[in-house]
């Protein structure tokens, strides 16, 4: 038990600090607003309703993946296979939808199976990390290789299109509003209810101090497995969003997204060590990554400098997020 608290700190919860304690995603929100403003400054068009909708629908997959990551991070774990899980679900549902004819029934059935696949991946991770007690970083890296292999087996090369019904719905409008808004609303409701569940508190307690949680009588292994299951579930949802946005299957599509999902979690103000996380922050963090990329472009950065400036900007934003988040807890 090496907690960060000192017994000389005065346990007062004044002003800003208690706000941060209650809403740990505030710094991320501020950063996001600043980035939005800057984007708007350099390219007023980028703040149009249409552009913002586009931003949301493009980054919805990363948002979901970051949220997926947040649940395992809560318990002090990490999932480097989240992107590979996304790829696997993506190719699996596309192949199934195509095989079953692409009708509404086929789409729904494929999505249901997609959820099961996501859960299965989560279960595998949970078993190797929590039950077999392998170190999360390396074990989930190994499973990511395995899942990628599976995805390649299911679809050896990118290319199969998703049924029009599916992606037109995702990219279209319902009752005059873009469909992604409904996705966002549904996500908000889901997150709200999840935050009230016992499992989330238990995940956080486990992430705080695993041994203490065990001695308290929490089923630590089961709790961590549930964390991975949640991660698998949201990775599957991420795959749905991605499939909706890309309308196709690609066995390698999620590979690069894993590390971005970790970055988004940290940007949002969660502690990677576990015990202190915010899903809303992760959502904002994912959007922040998107906005940084756009901003680098809209600022007119020369092409050979773009990658550097983008890397630097993300590093700086990461630092800002961590520093502000720490202020909240210090």
């Amino acid at each position, binding site marked *: 038990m*090496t907690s960060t608290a000192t017994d000389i700190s005065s346990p007062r919860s004044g002003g800003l600090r208690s706000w941060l304690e209650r809403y740990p995603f505030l710094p991320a929100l501020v950063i996001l607003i600043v980035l939005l403003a800057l984007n708007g400054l350099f390219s007023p068009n980028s703040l149009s309703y249409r552009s913002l909708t586009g931003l949301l629908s493009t980054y919805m997959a990363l948002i979901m993946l970051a949220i997926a990551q947040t649940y395992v991070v809560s318990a002090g774990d990490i999932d480097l296979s989240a992107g590979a899980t996304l790829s696997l679900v993506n190719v699996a549902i596309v192949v199934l939808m195509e095989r079953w004819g692409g009708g509404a029934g086929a789409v729904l059935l494929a999505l249901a199976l997609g959820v099961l696949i996501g859960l299965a991946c989560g279960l595998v991770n949970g078993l*190797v990390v929590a039950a*077999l*007690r*392998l*170190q999360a*970083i*390396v*074990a989930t*890296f*190994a*499973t*990511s*290789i*395995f*899942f*990628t*292999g*599976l995805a*390649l*087996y299911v679809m*050896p090369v990118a290319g199969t299109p998703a049924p029009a019904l599916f992606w037109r719905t995702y990219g279209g409008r319902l009752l005059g509003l873009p469909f992604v808004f409904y996705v966002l609303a549904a996500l908000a409701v889901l997150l709200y209810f999840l935050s009230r569940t016992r499992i989330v508190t238990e995940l956080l307690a486990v992430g705080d101090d*695993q*041994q203490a949680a*065990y001695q308290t009588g929490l089923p*630590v*292994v089961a709790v961590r497995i549930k964390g991975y299951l949640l991660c698998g579930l949201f990775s599957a949802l991420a795959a749905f969003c991605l499939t909706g946005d890309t309308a196709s299957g690609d066995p390698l599509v999620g590979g690069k997204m894993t*590390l971005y999902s*970790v*970055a988004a979690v*940290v940007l949002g103000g969660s*502690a*990677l*060590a576990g015990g202190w996380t915010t899903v809303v922050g992760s959502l904002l963090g994912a959007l922040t990554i998107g906005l940084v990329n756009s901003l680098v472009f809209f600022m007119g950065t020369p092409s*050979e*400098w*773009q*990658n*550097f*400036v*983008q*890397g*630097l900007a*993300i*590093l700086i934003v*990461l*630092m800002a997020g*961590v*520093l502000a988040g*720490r202020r909240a807890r210090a």
Partner: protein
Amino acid sequence: MSSVTSFFKQPLVVALILIVALLYLGQSLSPGFASADQILRLLIVASLLGIVAAGQNVVILGGREGIDLSVGGVVSLSAIIAGNVMNGADGGILPAVLACLAAGAFFGLLNGLGVTLLRIPPLVMTLGMLGVLQGLLVVIRQGIPSGRAAPGLSAFVTQPLALGIPGIIWLWIVIGLFMAFMLNRTVFGHRIYAIGSNEHAAYMAGVPVRLMRIGLFMISGMFAAIAGLCLLGYSGSSFANVGEQYMLSSIIAVVFGGTSLAGGKGGYTGTMAGALLLVILQGILTTVNIDESGRQMVFGATLLLLMLFYGRGRAMRA
């Protein structure tokens, strides 16, 4: 009896047994795999990984979730710097070594400062630094004339130096001895373990925690730089992203060697065996003729299986 079982529980011993088993398997799957020549070549590849893993190892040992994801970027950068400094001439080797070490130390310093002064978690700090390095590679490649290795460097890496063994393997052995000495017989080494297992207690006992941790990241940067230099010697010319593959494989090698990612527990001898193990496994998978999807599934599953031998966490119930 119990000393026999504990002997077989040592990560190093486990790794060595597995190495022999894998070589045997490789030889039976594809004859010629375990020939002396091939083993030497595998050792060359393993030493490149092993050198990167040495730095990774000390950072991980130092605790506070220590990890260095930027090693891949530093390897690439160092290969490019070295290629240009030596530009194919043996006389440029020494300046190249110095330039690479300086660059590695510099980026290690930045990592260390971020981790200690700003208290950014290492995973995040070094991941961000990796992004910066990748960007920097693009920028500096723009105005760069060459990236050729000096013949002396290439020979050092690929040609026998003494007793029929290439210089890089000797270098790796020296690094292994140095690390063993440093970790077990120096105050610095003991302090690495101290900050790794209880940073606050170490601080209260007068260990310059921040200085130490910055030092560890600098060591990691410098080992990555040395590896980048050797990699240039291995491949003859530098190219963007040479080092990418070392990011996660260096961590796996450390874990295979029985070092705990939680810090404060482990050593480098195991890591050396771990690096070799990983290289052999990849070698076998290259030589057996199966589909890439199958190859990846086998690779992932084998990694998991091998991990069962080490690095398993403590049971909750003692």
